[in-house]
């Protein structure tokens, strides 16, 4: 890491005298390294290079959990990059409070972000003490059930239209040697699946009561008990999915070894990469087909405070470019996510993406848990649900009690 940075610095200082005055190198760090993701990042780089500046790609492999510590230690250690990705929400909150991030309010006002970004909660998550500190680039939603049409055909049952039908179809799937529900071993997958079940079964109001108002009584109440009952079903159905990574779990669905998977819309990139078509090869059910609501988390770019005047100017140009309508379309089509502005043309979107856009247009949205809870509370939740999904002897009642405790101390 250090050596790479030193090489980069040497290269930069050697190149400096030769450079034209206007072109500014800006290092951008992110964790988009899978096939579809890097294609999407290339679109951002292309758009930024077209402004006469230069995008220096700082991809960090190993997903956010690995990348974020590296980014944060670089920023706090006094070696900030030009711009960096974070999940939309509270991951960079303390960096902003410590005065390490650049205030983007001037760019946001000039570009009228308040009017064009929807839902407005995205911009609210960037706003601390009335100042805007980040540029949202996409909307990712968690609330999808991906089903393998081939698996249901093999089991001789119809492709379910909602969660209850899916649970009812599970015995037939098992009989045919198919795992009904693929859940990978990474802790965030189990926690995410529970959040999805919660919106579908307990509804938007309960979801907000628990995660937004941190109401421990609601978390211990009968509505959430129903969700834990469903999570118990999900746990039983996920038995036998011996994989770790989420894309391996998606692969079980793609190859028909599993009936379905609860995963965010990024799974769509995997289906596309495997050459499968929405509707014919696989089916997607937003909100598990019960409650068509999607959460609107996603990714945002933050800009560390830099001393170099030239680079600060380039940061403003980058922030503007990221939200440019053309960049938004090119990026989000490759990424499989939804654009953050409604005034762009997405005729090329596929079936599932259109379903998502439709729900978004109706305004059936909730904030993502990354926006509502601190990373600390999220991690405790992950610990609980990964234990719950792996340990059949843990009763839903016990798990709910512990869940309520986490909510009561959540921030």
């Amino acid at each position, binding site marked *: 890491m250090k050596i790479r940075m030193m090489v980069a610095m040497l290269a930069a200082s050697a190149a400096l005298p030769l450079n034209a005055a206007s072109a500014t190198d800006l290092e951008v760090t992110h964790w988009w390294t899978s096939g579809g993701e890097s294609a999407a990042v290339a679109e951002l780089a292309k758009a930024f290079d077209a402004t006469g500046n230069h995008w220096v790609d700082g991809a960090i492999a190993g997903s956010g959990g690995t990348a974020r510590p590296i980014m944060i230690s670089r920023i706090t250690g006094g070696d900030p990059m030009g711009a960096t990705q974070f999940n939309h929400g509270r991951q960079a909150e303390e960096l902003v409070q410590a005065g390490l991030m650049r205030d983007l309010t001037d760019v946001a006002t000039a570009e009228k972000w308040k009017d064009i970004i929807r839902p407005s909660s995205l911009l609210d998550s960037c706003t601390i003490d009335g100042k805007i500190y980040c540029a949202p680039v996409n909307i990712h939603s968690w609330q999808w059930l991906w089903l393998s049409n081939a698996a249901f055909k093999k089991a001789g049952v119809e492709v379910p239209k909602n969660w209850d039908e899916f649970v009812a179809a599970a015995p037939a799937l098992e009989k045919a040697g198919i795992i009904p529900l693929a859940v990978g071993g990474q802790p965030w997958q189990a926690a995410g699946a529970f959040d999805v079940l919660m919106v579908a079964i307990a509804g938007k109001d309960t979801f907000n009561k628990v995660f937004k108002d941190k109401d421990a009584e609601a978390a211990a109440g009968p509505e959430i008990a129903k969700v834990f009952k469903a999570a118990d079903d999900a746990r039983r159905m996920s038995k036998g999915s011996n994989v770790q990574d989420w894309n391996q779990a998606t692969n079980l669905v793609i190859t028909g070894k599993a009936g379905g998977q609860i995963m965010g819309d990024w799974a769509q990139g995997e289906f596309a990469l495997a050459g499968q078509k929405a509707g014919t090869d696989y089916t997607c059910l937003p909100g598990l087909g019960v409650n068509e609501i999607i959460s609107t988390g996603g990714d945002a770019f933050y800009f560390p405070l830099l001393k170099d005047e030239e680079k600060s100017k380039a940061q403003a140009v980058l922030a503007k470019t990221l939200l440019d309508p053309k960049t938004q379309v090119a990026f989000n089509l490759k990424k499989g996510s939804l654009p953050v502005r409604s005034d762009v043309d997405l005729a090329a979107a596929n079936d599932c993406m259109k379903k998502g856009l439709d729900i978004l247009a109706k305004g059936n949205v909730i904030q993502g848990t990354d926006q509502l809870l601190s990373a600390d509370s999220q991690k405790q939740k992950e*610990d609980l649900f990964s234990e719950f999904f792996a340990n059949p002897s843990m009763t839903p009642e016990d798990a709910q009690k512990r869940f309520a405790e986490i909510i009561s101390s959540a921030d």
Partner: protein
Amino acid sequence: MTGHAQAGRPNKLLRNLNAKIASIPMILTALVIFVGGTLWTVFYSFTNSKLLPRLSFVGFDQYERLWAAPRWVTAIENLALYGILSLIFSLVIGFLLAALMDQKIRFENTFRTIFLYPFALSFIVTGLVWQWVLNPDFGIQSVVRSLGWTSFTFNPLYTPEIVIYGILIAALWQGTGLVMCLMLAGLRGIDEDIWKAARVDGIPMWKTYLFIVIPMMRPVFITTIVIIASGIVKVYDLVVAQTSGGPGISSEVPAKYVYDYMFQAQNLGQGFAASTMMLVTVAIIIVPWAYLEFGGGRKRG
């Protein structure tokens, strides 16, 4: 002045002055980085630091939360089980291999290379290799099943009760080679005359090993134990590569808790509390042992 009584005894502090000056950087590093860093960590474990260190004291709150967390308790239990078993097994297997190698066998160098080879791999590589070997869908279980024994079940990594043994297997595969080499060096250091004398007295070989050779190898054993034990306490990468702590939380270890809470959960205070507990645990074991071994007068020459 030369006639003084002190002339015969030069100042103790000034003896080997060059060596003392040369070691100043190391002494400073040890004091500032290790001791200083340790004190800093312990100090901040009593604060409510989240992403950045912050001076807002909360007393023992972080420790209370730590010991109430099922994941931490599981991690400690796993470390105890893994530690005791890997200490015993790597010593026993390592010593047996070394004793066998010491029988003047042919191709000794070849065998030594084979046994030591895994040690050259990083824990991440070892972990990934054993994740594949133990995976029920394409590892040992599926190979045996494809041979016709279809009811064969060997799935440690996805069975919560035995997952820690799956990790232990990989750790032993990696580590016993080094233990064997250390033991072999120790055995080679035993004087040939001792063996001859034992043979003359008609002492069976196993007894010679158990009651004469092993006690004579005490320094080697101590070195080996220190090396193994330091590997046990910091075990992290092997678990990450093999199971990521799963299924659920059943193969979590303390070092992983520290990392996850410091960096993923952005809760430095909690991570510091956990690492302080690790330090305390080590100190409880090390301090009395070190006192017995190195302090308490010069009982051994």
